[in-house]
């Protein structure tokens, strides 16, 4: 294990089983600062489970995880400290329904980071402005559209100043017209230098934003490489099959348009 100054996240040999079924069969990868890695693959390949193992919302059976050279998996006692440094965006948004958009973004700052209320409010408004929603600050989740909800949840995660952002199929639950506004925000974030792991089906997005694409199936990493290589000349037949099917369904990348 090298002490590489540039490595933000390192995941080694993750195994996870639910009952008799092994969902993750030995996943390893690492991300350097500022990189965006996109994970693709068929449903049930364990992509969501992997993300949840990274911030320990799901406890893994075997394997290790390092965040900025500190081992996350060993600390039973202070997982919360690590979670503050990892931002997670869920497919179902999971906004706190009893709080306004502003309070949703604020609450992590006030209750977890214990920041002064006034400062927290200012930061929260700024984060909402970054995702284009400062006018909706006082609305409740039930009053927001799907795309707005997801942008608030991104703002909520970003407010904590995480070292890495984990996106779990951020647009899968959105109506097609709303997907664009969310992808815009995520793209902007990637270009600004945030370290990110994104699980998604949006191939166009993957091609234009990812530094590297990881193809997972059946709990294993089948293939990984830069987008151009994976899409034009992958090492594995299975990768090519999957990408063909998906590109048919979801259309070509932004560059090709």
């Amino acid at each position, binding site marked *: 294990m090298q002490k590489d100054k540039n490595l933000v996240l390192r995941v080694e040999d993750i195994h996870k089983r639910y009952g008799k079924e092994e969902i993750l069969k030995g996943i390893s990868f690492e991300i350097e600062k500022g990189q965006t890695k996109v994970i693709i693959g068929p449903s049930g390949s364990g992509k969501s489970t992997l993300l949840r193992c990274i*911030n320990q*919302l799901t406890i893994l059976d075997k394997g290790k995880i390092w965040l900025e050279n500190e081992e996350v998996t060993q600390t039973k006692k202070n997982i*919360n*400290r690590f*979670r*503050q440094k*990892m*931002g*997670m965006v*869920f497919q*179902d*948004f*999971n*906004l*706190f*329904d*009893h709080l306004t958009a502003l309070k949703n973004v604020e*609450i*992590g700052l006030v*209750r*977890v*980071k214990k920041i002064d209320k006034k400062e927290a409010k200012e930061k929260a408004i700024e984060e909402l402005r970054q995702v284009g929603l400062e006018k909706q600050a006082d609305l*409740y*989740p*039930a*009053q927001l559209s799907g795309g707005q909800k997801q942008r608030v*949840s991104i703002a*909520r*995660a970003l407010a*904590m100043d995480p070292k890495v952002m984990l996106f779990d199929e951020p647009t899968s639950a959105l109506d097609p017209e709303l997907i664009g506004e969310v992808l815009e925000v995520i793209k902007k974030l990637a270009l600004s230098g945030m370290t990110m792991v994104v699980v998604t089906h949006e191939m166009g997005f993957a091609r234009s934003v990812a530094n590297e694409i990881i193809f997972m199936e059946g709990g294993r990493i089948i293939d990984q490489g830069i987008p151009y290589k994976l899409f034009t000349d992958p090492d594995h037949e299975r990768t090519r099959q999957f990408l063909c099917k998906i590109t048919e369904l979801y259309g070509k990348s932004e560059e090709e348009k």
Partner: protein
Amino acid sequence: MSDINFIREILLPPVLEGTVVTLKLIVASIPLGLILGILIAVGRVYGNRLISSFCIIYTLFFRGTPLLVQLFILYFGFPSIGIFFSPFAAAIIAFILCSGAYHSEYVRGAIQSIKSGQMMAAEALGMNKFKAILYIILPQALRRSIPGCSNEIIYLVKYSSLAFMVTCVELTGAGKIIASRYFEYTLVFLVVGAIYLLMVSVVTKFLGMLEKKLEIPGIG
């Protein structure tokens, strides 16, 4: 003596005193019963095996037995093992313990109806279980349990009458004493009944306003 005079001079004074006792009983037991209910519900859903089992058994006992039996155990039973309660104390303790069990079922149902994603999102932000329950789960669960808990509160207003069975002279007790002395059961209990109807109506109205005030679009 005419009915009106009877009511005004003989019935009303003790009955109003009794009403004050009833009000003391319910003001003391309603908030505490609700708080106990919340604690039991949280203990049952989030506690470890031991705490959870205790909460289950507690709820089973206090919802499976009549309030009157619980009152008798407290007031007549405990002295035989050396613990003495005054009628008022026995009544309040029984009311708190009993309504706590019913409240806990409503709150528990509400907690379990909240999507697991809420807890996940809270933990993802770095909140520990305690903070997540306090700031995210309970504010939503409590709003959802308002109808059920309101129902239970109104029940308690009425069942406070059982305090008389352990010699605590509240509204019903005061009425019974006058009624048996003057043999005017119908009149007395129509008046007593009217006072209960009034109390229940006021409490219902108040709880309705409370629910409206706490309403959040999209919850409950």
